[in-house]
């Protein structure tokens, strides 16, 4: 039995999960950024409306 066989099997499983993890982290970071942006734009509109009054 090739000793590399097990090493590469675990490498394959690790890479698969790593890609999922990186994708989930990128989604979480984008979520945070979008929420901040949404709050910023809402604040900007509220400020604009109050100065118009």
């Amino acid at each position, binding site marked *: 039995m090739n000793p590399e066989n097990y090493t590469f099997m675990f490498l*394959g499983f690790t890479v698969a999960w790593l*890609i*999922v993890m990186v*994708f989930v982290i990128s989604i979480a970071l*984008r979520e945070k950024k*979008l929420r901040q942006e*949404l709050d910023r*734009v809402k604040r900007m509109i509220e400020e604009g409306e109050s100065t118009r009054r």
Partner: protein
Amino acid sequence: MRLKIILTLTVLSGAILAWNLHRIFTQVPDEANQGAIFRIIYFHVPAAITSFTGFYLGMFSGVGYLIRKDLRLDSIAASINEVSLAFATITICTGSIWGRIIWGIWWTWDARLTSYFVCLLIYFGYFMLRRAIDDPTTRARLSAVLSIFACVDIVLVWKSIEWFRTQHPGPVLEIRGGGGMAPGMEAPLWWNFLALLMLSAALILIRTRQEAMKLEIDALRRHAHAF
């Protein structure tokens, strides 16, 4: 409600994957010729089928946009395609690792590998295109057209192992008439497919909500500029 669905899908997917991982390592024997490395198939194939399913759903959503001109359908298409692209990347990477042991090489320009690589490039191009176009309607229209074009390549990817006999193994699953796996060895593959499908559904729901937030931000910005 959406959060509950996301949580349920994630928990169910995690439970099936954990249970299946236990089965793959303790109950499924090593393959006679390949040894332990064959177990990569339990992620490689389900990830590939998940990506194909997603790319087609993304294409249908894009076609839905072309018919109904509803930007929400374009957002759904983009979300589905993004998640599917992550699973397609898993397929390419795990396949390459398997190939390093079985073929002795990381990569070869075989019909299946090349057509799948082209598919990946088309979808990377899809997201580059989306970033490059500011106008939402033009972006949605061109994305939908590119998505249709990409799905033609997926047919080629799927059929390539029947049409061309090169490096990649031919069909092994029973549904494709392969019969290359014992029934006890094939069942965990389908359980993993179900788990990955549920995981991708949860991720798509999260991404769809984010795309809806983007549309809301764009609408608010237009409202702000109107002052």
